[in-house]
């Protein structure tokens, strides 16, 4: 178990390095530096700026410095939000995004597996087709189309929920963005769960469980659920990536002051360090989460460990 974890960790590190390297050189290869403003600065000022940010050193030294800073958790200053470091902006925005993301993840896994199970247990009935059609809709209609429709219906039309804002994370403000964010993931999870559940329901050991007279409830909960859930578990990595990307748009639509909003603002304002910092932060988060999922998977499925 420990050696498996170690091996997985060894696999995660190069990915992280590639990410930082790619992001760094993409930034340096880009035409124009961060101080190329409309009004050119005097050469002396420019030289001072370059010296202050270490831009006068050879590229390889700059890269080594940046790598060292990032590994110590320092993402540098923001170019647009003066007086703020990228770390401070992340500390400000991330808790909001985290709350949104975790809520959406819970909704996605809970409802997705429930719908998938229902569809699998009633395969080829009306409820199965119903669930699968809804799932197809959830996959096909992008969440940035769903979100305005939800606002139009529940905020503007019915007036039940606020159309946007965060309000310190009150539940009224969370409902609509979470629904829009979770919808495609609910759909994917339901499809995966349905497929794996159908397979498990056909298996011999489940037939045995039924043959010895166990009640359906127990057959499903004790015997079918765990193996059927494994494919869903391995989908959690991509789901996290999907939810993080989705929350960038949701925060924009619902004007939620999360990290995604900072990110888009930074991207539109060409705030190099902020964009770079958030890319690395989210990248590390996704890679770390994938690592955790791998570990969890190996706990639940001994076959993986054996390889």
């Amino acid at each position, binding site marked *: 178990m420990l050696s498996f974890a170690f091996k997985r960790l060894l*696999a*995660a590190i*190069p*990915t992280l390095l*590639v*990410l930082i390297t*790619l*992001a760094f050189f*993409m*930034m340096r*290869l*880009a*035409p124009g530096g961060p101080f190329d403003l409309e009004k050119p600065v005097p050469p002396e000022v420019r030289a001072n700026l370059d010296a202050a940010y270490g831009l006068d050193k050879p590229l390889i030294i700059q890269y080594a410095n940046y790598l060292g800073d990032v590994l110590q958790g320092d993402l540098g200053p923001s170019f647009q939000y003066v007086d703020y470091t990228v770390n401070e902006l992340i500390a400000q925005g991330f808790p909001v995004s985290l709350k949104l993301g975790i809520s959406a993840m819970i909704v996605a896994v809970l409802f997705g597996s429930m719908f998938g199970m229902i569809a699998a247990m009633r395969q080829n009935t009306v409820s199965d087709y119903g669930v699968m059609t809804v799932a*197809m*809709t959830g*996959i*096909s*209609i*992008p969440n*940035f*189309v769903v*979100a*305005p*429709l939800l*606002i*139009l219906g529940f905020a*503007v039309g019915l007036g039940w929920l606020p159309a946007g804002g965060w309000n310190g994370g009150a539940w009224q403000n969370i409902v609509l963005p979470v629904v829009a964010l979770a919808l495609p993931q609910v759909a994917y999870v339901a499809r995966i769960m349905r497929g794996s559940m159908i397979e498990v329901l056909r298996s011999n050991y489940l037939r045995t469980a039924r043959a010895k007279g166990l009640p359906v409830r127990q057959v499903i909960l004790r015997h079918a659920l765990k193996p059927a859930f494994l494919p869903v578990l391995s989908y959690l990595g991509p789901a996290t*990536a999907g939810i*993080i*990307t989705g929350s*960038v*748009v949701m925060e*924009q*639509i619902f004007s939620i002051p999360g990290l995604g909003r900072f*990110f*888009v603002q*930074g*991207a*539109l304002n*060409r705030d*190099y360090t902020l*964009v*770079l910092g*958030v*890319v690395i932060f*989210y*990248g590390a988060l*996704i*890679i770390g989460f*994938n690592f955790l999922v791998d570990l969890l998977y190996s706990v639940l499925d001994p076959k993986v460990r054996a390889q």
Partner: protein
Amino acid sequence: MSTNAANAITETLDGDEVVQGRSLWVDAWRRLRRNKAAVTSLVILGAMLLICFIGPVLAPYSFDAVDWDKVATAPSLSDGHFFGTDAVGRDLFVRTLVGGQISLLVGIVATAVSLLIGTAWGATAGYMGGRVDSVMMRIVDILYALPFMFLVILLMVLFGRNIVLIFVAIGAITWLDMARIVRGQTLSLKGREFVEAAQAMGVSTRNIILRHVVPNLLGVVVVYVTLTIPRVILVESFLSFLGLGVQEPSTSWGALVNEGAREMESSWWTLAFPASFLALTLFCFNFVGDGLRDALDPKDR
């Protein structure tokens, strides 16, 4: 008697009246035709392509011409603004179709890029096997774990927002899946009996690849291509929605949905038409993809 029979057999084998075997594709087409959802989607997609590329030519307005007398007017058949006009008085019907051109073009071109890279990469890795294979797939694994959406946004920020870059960037995201699928399929095909049989009969390697491996690879690839196109369209509209994709006055469905979402309370049509075009297209591609998967791989059903 027996020589007659033998002659008859050789005649049949040589002659033109050989019973035509049903190829994989004929079979698949039969099965696909029975799938109503897939056929309907195919027809809608065909119509969508036609209308997006021919419609703007026939329409009386151009996609960037401003009609000063008609700013944000509702859809009407009488003045030729079938879908109404947007907040600055441009004809929404033509804009939706022109946006569709961009979205569909991005979908098809970027998928072609990913098909090219992915198939070449995956097939090479699969055929070579051994160390080459493990190095190549290790690279894919590493790239796979990167948050590509964010790297694409970073790319857009750094190099400016141009359409060619969008093609390449999106193609570069999606080829990874293609490479994995193609490699897996190639590996399993390499050891199959019919390839062995062909080798034993002395068929040349080139013919084995072309006649026996590629057709079997093609089924999976075709399914995957139809499922990649909607994903790519979605990525592009996501970028454009955030204002990081195509730039004014050019437009795409994502950009139109973004404009529409801002105006939806006063003029619903600016959201409704682009959004339903986008959703309908994605829906149809997904249905065709699922239908093709069922048709080409019946053992999955």
